[in-house]
């Protein structure tokens, strides 16, 4: 636990020192707030809250997770510290988990900043039916993004095209998980795929928190989100074990 917390704290300090991360943390939420706020300015309070406040905040969160998870591995590789982390006695998985926890906490800050910017610029506040469900979903969102980040990190440890991949996955996931518009607009076969992704269920949770729903619906969303998060963690765990073996065989950790 000490390793994870120490890794998270060090990573948070390192991250905020970078100008690009400061952009992701402060300017990106501001731009997202203006863009989505103006797009949904004519809509009802509930729709505005769902997409312009919560959806755009989640997209800022996702941008931080997506860029940091991929770029961190790439940066460590570039600096030549990836093999040192890899062979550290504390364990590569624990250190990476700490880093992703740090990223997710910054992502949560971006999320809250986004809510603040939308409220400040458009004078429209959170119109939610169930604030408890909203808080629960936000906490689960942090955990699920850590799990998604872990899966991405394990993949990016092997790949040397992290920069390309992280740019490639950012926008499609924003579109197919319903963060910026309703899933009703996308084709059915893509919609099926969307439901295998945990951010889609975070948005479903937000929808229930905003529009309201019965306990059964809430239980389904929460349990699905927990299950998908657990599956992601398991995939990440197995992937990390496989990647550790493969990295030892191929010896490509220092190749940039």
């Amino acid at each position, binding site marked *: 636990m000490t390793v994870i917390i120490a890794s998270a704290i060090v990573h948070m300090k390192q991250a905020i020192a970078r*100008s*690009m991360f400061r*952009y992701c943390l402060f*300017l*990106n939420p501001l*731009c997202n707030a*203006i*863009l989505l706020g*103006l*797009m949904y*300015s004519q809509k009802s309070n509930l729709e505005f809250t769902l997409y312009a406040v919560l959806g755009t905040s989640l997209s800022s969160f996702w941008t931080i997770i997506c860029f940091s998870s991929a770029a961190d591995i790439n940066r460590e590789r570039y600096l030549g510290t990836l093999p040192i982390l890899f062979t550290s006695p504390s364990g590569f998985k624990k250190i990476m988990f700490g880093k992703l926890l740090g990223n997710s906490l910054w992502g949560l800050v971006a999320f809250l900043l986004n809510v603040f910017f939308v409220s400040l610029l458009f004078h429209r506040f959170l119109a939610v039916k169930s604030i408890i469900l909203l808080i629960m979903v936000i906490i689960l969102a942090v955990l699920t993004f850590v799990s998604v980040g872990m899966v991405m990190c394990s993949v990016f440890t092997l790949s040397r095209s992290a920069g390309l991949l992280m740019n490639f996955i950012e926008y499609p996931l924003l579109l197919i998980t319903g963060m910026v518009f309703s899933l009703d607009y996308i084709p059915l076969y893509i919609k099926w795929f969307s439901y295998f992704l945990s951010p889609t269920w975070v948005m479903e949770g937000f929808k229930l928190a905003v529009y309201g729903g019965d306990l059964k619906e809430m239980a389904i969303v929460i349990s699905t989100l927990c299950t998908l998060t657990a599956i992601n963690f398991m995939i990440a765990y197995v992937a990390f074990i496989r990647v550790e073996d493969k990295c030892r065989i191929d010896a490509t950790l220092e190749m940039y």
Partner: protein
Amino acid sequence: MERVFRFYRRIIFSYKQSSIMSDWKTYMLFDLIPPILQTLFFSMVAVLFLSSFVAMSFGYVFSCFILITSETNLVLNLVGRLLLIFTGANFPISKLPSFLQWFSNLLPLTRSIQIAQGLVEGTKFSKYYGLVYEELLLGCSFIVIAIFILKIMERKSRTTGKMEVT
């Protein structure tokens, strides 16, 4: 502007009068190409070229700043977002506060997006010649500005020695 158009119309008319009507060049130039150019596909291709030109010119201005800053990704991401907000790509410019609407007119792609939206709604390309000229003028202005900025930035990068700093 109407006088200029009238002048060119007279030239075309006199050229057609003086040439043989079966002349294929005359046919191609004045009878075949203009109607084709008015079709949606070719109009959109023309808008694409126009927007590419003005975006390239704008990119030229920004490439000058890369000589003195190492924050390339930061600048590009920020400018990308600003263009999304201010060019009317995702929502009409009329939603912006009035003091920001004039800023949209100084940005590339604002007019190209306006033309493309109009074409999709069924308006003819010929109705947008004014906007096309404005966009071309804006693109040329960016190039002229970039040439001056490049000279200044070259001098600055030599004095500060930041060109190789990452």
